[in-house]
């Protein structure tokens, strides 16, 4: 398929970089679904997707292309089928696993870029640590819709590592960083495709900026109502254990039980 013909706004050089890229997407929920479909439409031909979850009825409002018969199937499998229906020559690896795991680490180590579309802090942290270890570009995204009686409210952000050296910890990632709105039992509530699509596009645009060497900032924040987008630069922190002056040694092979 001639991706360049279908994406005339890209320069040949940029198109070549996109087509040659090996992309990993962590999380195929509402955000990851948009990221994946946009990347594939952009011309990415080698992609690995990770998510241990199955399709649920509450996903149907934002996982476009999914239908009632897909409920119960792995998200990564359904996404793969949809992609192959449009782009039969796409090389897509589907991993119904949680992150981190050995397969994720292997794919990340061989990738050009990782997109993180998580709703929990631990996979975010793991992806950040592994990206630092293997010196890979990592775009982390998150969205949050707010409970609002009379209007609508939500926000999102996309973060680029190693845009200006800083990592997610420097950007303020915490154990309970807000993600999707959670109900009284702490379970993630269904989000909306509207805000997911905007944040997905923003994250991909950050990647494109890094490909052409024109990064303006390493974090772009989106606010839904009132609508606005802001690009900022997060400074690296000297005491950061991931990217600071005293970096963690990467002894992930060390057997503590036998030490």
């Amino acid at each position, binding site marked *: 398929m001639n991706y360049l013909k279908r994406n005339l706004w890209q320069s040949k050089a940029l198109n070549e970089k996109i087509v040659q890229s090996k992309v990993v997407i962590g999380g195929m929920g509402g955000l990851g679904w948009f990221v994946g479909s946009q990347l594939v439409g952009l011309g990415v031909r080698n992609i690995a997707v990770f998510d241990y979850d199955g399709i649920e009825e509450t996903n149907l409002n934002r996982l476009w292309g999914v239908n009632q018969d897909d409920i119960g199937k792995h998200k990564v499998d359904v996404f793969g089928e949809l992609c192959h229906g449009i782009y039969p020559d796409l090389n897509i690896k589907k991993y119904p696993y949680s992150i*981190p795991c*050995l397969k994720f*680490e292997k794919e990340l180590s061989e990738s050009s870029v990782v997109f993180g579309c998580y709703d929990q*802090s*631990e996979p975010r*942290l*793991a992806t950040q*640590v592994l990206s630092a270890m293997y010196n890979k570009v990592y775009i982390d995204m998150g969205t949050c819709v707010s409970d609002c009686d009379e209007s609508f409210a939500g926000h999102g952000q996309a973060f680029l590592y190693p845009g200006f050296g800083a990592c997610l*910890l420097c950007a303020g*990632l*915490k*154990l*309970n960083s807000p993600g999707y709105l959670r109900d009284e039992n702490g379970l993630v509530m269904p989000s909306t495709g509207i805000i997911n699509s905007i944040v997905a596009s923003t994250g991909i645009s950050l990647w494109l900026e890094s490909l052409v060497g024109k990064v303006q900032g390493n974090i772009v924040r989106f606010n839904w109502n009132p609508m606005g987008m802001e690009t900022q630069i997060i400074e690296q922190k000297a005491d950061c*254990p*991931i990217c600071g002056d*005293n970096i*963690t*040694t*990467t*002894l*992930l*092979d*060390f*057997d*503590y*039980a*036998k*030490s």
Partner: protein
Amino acid sequence: MQNPRLLQRDIKFLKLFKDMQIIGGDRYCPVHAVRINNFKTPENILEREVNIVIPFPRCFGYFKDCAFSGIHIDRQLHTTYKNEPTDVPFCHSVNKEELIDKSGYYPFYEKDSELFDGTYFLCLYKEKDPPLTVVDVLDYAYKYLCGCLLNAFHTANIHKLVLYGNGEGNKEVSKRWMNHLLRGLSPVLKEDLEWRC
């Protein structure tokens, strides 16, 4: 994901204990917990040597709010109040079902249930300055045990103020803490806590 450099630092300290065993995990969370046998308790505790297990947090060494929650002990600890034996406050028996929902933060509960089912959990989590290293948690455990009854009176006082509407906080939460506190205490101590605070 656990910070390897900080794990090495803490394990180096733990090797000072004669009978110490690491309960290993996987490549990303290499230390699920540490067991220390024959741990010496303060003199006010009737059980002078106990075996303890310390669960390690999943994101140890990375998030400042990712802390140790407490330690598991192989038996109920007792102290004395007005010459009567009483359970140590906030040290209660646990079962697997109670802790399974904590496996998101502590992988020990997901994978090693035979090691904590039937133990007694000494709850050491505090919102301000929670224990972030193994040295912290053992130091805090020892100090807590030294003054466990003073701590009980202090805790009861705070929660009674909330329950009576004279203090800030959530009444339901305070009521749960009070019920938790009163479990297993001697009738004399219980009476003093209920009426004096």
